[in-house]
């Protein structure tokens, strides 16, 4: 508010009414999003009696918990990065590759389906395909004598999980980046080529910088998406793979860590990681977007 004489009472009254309009929403968000999250954050710094401590956070620094974070981050980064790359290539092929326009609508619908086809059923689909008795595994073994297992591939592993997550990561990228690719004006490309730029130079100096914020934002989203994915991981691996969401799930179910407040700390760690990923995104985006209003 600017410095003015106090507003007349009528205006204050109106202002209050306007705020009331979003009260149900605010209340809902407070009760079912903000407070539960805060409860975790605060709990991570509390002893069971409620006093302040760093002990829970310090408790995270055990080899097994640290390695679970490390594997989780690796899976999330790789599935987000590969998902962004492949999704980008597929969207670019669709938008800029001179393919029939009619392909587009079914592909976007399919992307909508696949990006929502996560969780337990997705795990089953991949078990049926790349599991020990899966379609592809058996086909490669009987037709080509390629034994995936002997080559060190296991669906219950880092790569197995990454490949599975790509099933919802790639379509999500396609859904988000397609409108951005549509936003690239044909004239930019033509102007660049008139000025002597090769296709690669156009992409490096014009198209990619323009798309960068979108790609970065999608990467952050895909990262969080993979980092918090519980159902697929549990259905796929049971508890054989030591990643954060699985550990936290087991902890909530049965306090496997033997310390309820260590669970808070683990959950807090998850918020911290996804939060950090988004802070990095926001900072990079602000730096890369000086040219936007």
């Amino acid at each position, binding site marked *: 508010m600017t410095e003015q004489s106090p507003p007349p009472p009528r205006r204050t009254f109106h202002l209050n009414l306007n705020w009331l309009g979003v009260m149900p929403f605010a209340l809902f968000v407070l009760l079912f999003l903000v407070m539960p999250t805060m409860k975790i954050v605060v709990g991570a710094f509390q002893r069971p009696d409620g006093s302040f401590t760093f002990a829970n956070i310090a408790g995270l620094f055990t080899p097994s918990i640290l390695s679970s974070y490390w594997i989780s981050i690796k899976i999330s980064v790789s599935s987000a990065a590969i998902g962004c790359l492949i999704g980008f290539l597929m969207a670019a092929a669709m938008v800029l590759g001179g393919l029939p326009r009619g392909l587009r609508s079914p592909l976007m619908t399919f992307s909508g389906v696949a990006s929502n086809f996560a969780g337990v059923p997705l795990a089953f689909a991949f078990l049926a395909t790349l599991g020990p008795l899966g379609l592809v595994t058996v086909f490669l073994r009987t037709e080509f004598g390629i034994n995936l297992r002997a080559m060190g591939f296991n669906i219950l592993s880092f790569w197995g999980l990454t490949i599975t997550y790509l099933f919802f990561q790639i379509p999500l990228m396609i859904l988000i980046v397609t409108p951005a690719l549509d936003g690239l*004006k044909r*004239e*930019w490309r*033509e*102007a*660049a*080529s*008139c*000025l*002597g*730029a*090769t296709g690669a*130079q156009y992409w490096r*100096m*014009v198209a990619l*910088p*323009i798309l960068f914020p979108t790609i970065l934002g999608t990467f952050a989203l895909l990262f969080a998406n993979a980092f918090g994915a519980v159902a697929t991981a549990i259905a796929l691996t049971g508890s054989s793979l030591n990643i954060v969401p699985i550990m936290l799930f087991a902890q909530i179910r049965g306090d496997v860590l033997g310390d309820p407040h260590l669970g808070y700390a683990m959950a807090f760690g998850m918020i911290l990681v996804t939060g950090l990923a988004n802070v990095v995104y926001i900072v990079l985006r602000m730096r890369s977007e*000086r*040219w*936007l*209003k």
Partner: protein
Amino acid sequence: MTFLTISRLEKSFGANRVVKDFNLEVEKGEFISLLGPSGCGKTTVLRMVAGFELPSAGRITIAGKDVSRLRPNHRNIGMVFQAYALFPNLTVAQNVGFGLKVKGAPAREIAARVAEMLALIGLPEMGERYPYQLSGGQQQRVALARALAPKPQVLLLDEPLSALDAKVRVSLRNEIRAIQRELGITTIFVTHDQEEALSMSDRIVVMHQGVADQVGTPFDIYNRPATRFVAGFVGTLNTLTAQVIDPASGHVRVGGSDLVLGRALPGGEVVLGLRPEMLRLGAEPGMASLTGTITELDFLGSVIRLRLDLGDQRLAVDLFNTTRATPPRVGDSVTLALDPADALVIGA
């Protein structure tokens, strides 16, 4: 030898022939306009010169070199687009320097050239701004500077003024013409606006349905249109059907008035084209005359536009406004004088 030659150029999209047997020879430093309604193929011709479309047939040579199949980035052509097409992620200076940068010019050379170009377009202080911070007119001037910075052999302008306000349009068109003269750069300008084409060009190509109807100076195009389309598209033209009474002396009858054009005509019927501003009120000795009744009168300030009923045909007449004469009124029966030499015979 001509600098830019387009010969027998053809372009089809599927079964649709957009450009048919298009020929043009442009001298070095010449300013040529391609004028025509939308869909006449003028933009397609330009895009083939730029290299964005490959011709279905024909050749384009620049400075004696066949460029018909060359990629756009090897043609050394500058282009300005209707929608500015500045790179939004680059500053004005980076936009202008883009062409030199992709060629790998040293930074100092780029900076010097950018400063030179920004001075040329009168925006020397704007180098650090981003395109969104500029007005439309400023953006288009930057686009012009960007196109000119790498010293292209040919400058192509694709309706560069269409997206601008009327006022900016006029000032920018003078500016573009001045810069073009100063640099002596061969320029092809695509427009659907006859006023732009007439005021800026050394020569105009009027295009219609993929064909060049007429190539000529603005004066020729306006005063000696070669086809009925050119006559009708450039300027306002009254077309009147006339009965030829004596082919040898050019004696015709139009709506009850007799005119003697003083040149040989084919027999039967001809179509006469009369510019509204070629007619004057009142009878004059030595001039042909037409009579009719005023049905409409629009006072437009400097001009008074009349519509007349000539019996079986209608005629528009523009009179200059003067303070001396009392204006005619609707319903008046008037006589109009015209120089028979000004009447265009467009054929039957």
